[in-house]
């Protein structure tokens, strides 16, 4: 049903001008829409960059008024990054691996425990107050206790990150595996699917959007937990570098370490966002409604 086959009344075009057809009009419309989108994007990006430049300008202006110990400007911060690179680079590697390990461990624990508790309504009811207490407890508050138990190395940071990261995954797994489309559940039961089959082929899959949201939250929480543990233990990682700078009133170093830490945190966060999009597309699922 190509539109070109339809005989449209052709208006007599003046010399040198093409006749008006549906295709032309549509193409023009599309071009206009694309141009509008491009213009909007350009405008928004420019505005965003202007805001960014404004913030940096404000930072510079404020920094020039205050002492470098109180507020170092962009220049000294970059200088500190160069000067302290031999300190910051290995610390960044430590921090990045602590976050990755703690996040992986916590996610695994969250998935397992959430799945187990999700098997039984009774178990969920019994554990409910404990889950609430676990949720309410600021996990980073456990840092001194865990440092005391596990020492000053990699282990306490990974443990605290795992404790922090586990909860959102646990909660969303628990909720997700229970919230299943009833028709699908009946279909599975009718086709004689076993409990395990139903669990892995229906419940886990349909819980994936919720689980992945939990995973995204878990990445951020793991990062926070690692930094706090490094503040408290103060031996390895970017948090420790920040504490060194803080103790020596070397504020530019604190700023430099903070920026590297922010970069690490952002990289992990966007990796989690990308993973979420990828998995959802792979399983052809919609993201959870927000």
């Amino acid at each position, binding site marked *: 049903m190509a539109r070109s086959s339809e005989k449209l009344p052709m208006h007599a075009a003046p010399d040198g001008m093409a006749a008006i057809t549906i295709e032309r009009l549509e193409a023009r419309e599309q071009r206009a829409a694309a141009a509008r989108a491009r213009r909007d994007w350009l405008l928004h990006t420019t505005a965003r960059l202007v*805001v960014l430049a404004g913030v940096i300008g404000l930072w510079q202006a404020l920094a020039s008024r205050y002492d470098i110990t109180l507020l170092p400007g962009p220049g000294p911060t970059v200088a500190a990054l160069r000067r302290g690179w031999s300190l910051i680079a290995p610390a960044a590697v430590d921090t990045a691996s602590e976050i990755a390990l703690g996040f992986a461990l916590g996610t695994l624990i969250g998935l397992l425990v959430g799945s187990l508790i999700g098997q039984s309504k009774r178990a969920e009811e019994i554990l409910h107050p*404990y889950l609430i207490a676990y949720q309410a*407890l600021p996990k980073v508050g456990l840092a001194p*206790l865990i440092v005391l138990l596990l020492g000053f190395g990699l282990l306490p940071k990974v443990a605290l990150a795992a404790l922090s990261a586990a909860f959102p995954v646990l909660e969303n797994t628990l909720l997700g595996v229970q919230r299943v489309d009833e028709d699908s559940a009946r279909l599975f039961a009718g086709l004689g699917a076993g409990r395990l089959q139903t669990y892995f082929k229906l419940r886990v899959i349909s819980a994936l959007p919720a689980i992945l949201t939990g995973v995204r939250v878990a990445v951020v929480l793991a990062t926070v937990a690692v930094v706090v543990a490094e503040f408290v233990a103060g031996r390895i990682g970017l948090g420790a570098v920040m504490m060194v700078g803080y103790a020596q009133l070397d504020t530019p170093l604190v700023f430099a370490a*903070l920026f590297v830490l922010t970069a690490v*945190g952002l990289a992990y966060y966007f990796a989690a966002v990308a993973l979420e999009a990828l998995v959802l597309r792979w399983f052809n699922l919609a993201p959870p409604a927000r």
Partner: protein
Amino acid sequence: MALGRLHAEKTDAELFQHFYERAVRAETEQHRRARQTTLVGQVVVLGALVGLWWAASTVYPPVLVPSPPATVQAFVDGRATLWENTPITIAEIVLGFLVGSLLGIGFGVVIGQSRWAEVIFTPYLVVSQAVPKVALAPILIIVLGYGLASKVAVAALIAFFPLLENTIGGLRQVDPDSLRLLRSLGATRWQIFMKLRVFSALPLIFAGLRIAAVLATVGAIVGEFVAGNRGLGALLVTSMGTFSTSLLYATMGVLTVLACGVYLAAQWGERRALARYNLAPPEA
């Protein structure tokens, strides 16, 4: 038979009443029994946790895992210290929560006024979610000193963002039909804001307040970790440094109770506020 006798003595309505009440009684009894089982299970879990702790304390030296009685003893011995430090932490949490959420709502309202501002700030808001804001604690302490102000600032900083985000989101997601109705009735921008947008934003703002209260607790504790002077967080770090492990455990207990209190109070507040304005909670 009982049924026959009942038929003889009672009217249909009375009969219905009789069986209805019996069914209700049976159901309540069943509920009660289920609740009882759950309660027993909860007590068993608590017992198991304490038992596990006790067992661990016999295996590990008291400097790592003090026994439950030793911890209670430390709580009793250290009650003066705990009594002194707890109000400081509470004050930091409350002030940080108030400052952070007021600023968050304020900025949210300003940014939410303009579609443009929102579009411009969105990527920065996304980035702000991923940035570990507590890492700013050392800087805030350098700038604001070791006193109350710096911890309030840390708590306020991380309480700020959920409110900023939820306020902007809430002001935008209004029912389009209501908006059209108000517009067609000639409502001004101010009237639409006050009578429609604010109310449709309230559930998300209340949810933001609940999250902010919990985050303010985290902020206050981390601030005290770094500045290590007064408050429960400072007490935790000090007792870690001096290996006063039983005091560390006792302080952790107080902190747990405090955090649960903040959480439950925030939840209660959210529910009350929603009920007050007859609103449904936002969908998760």
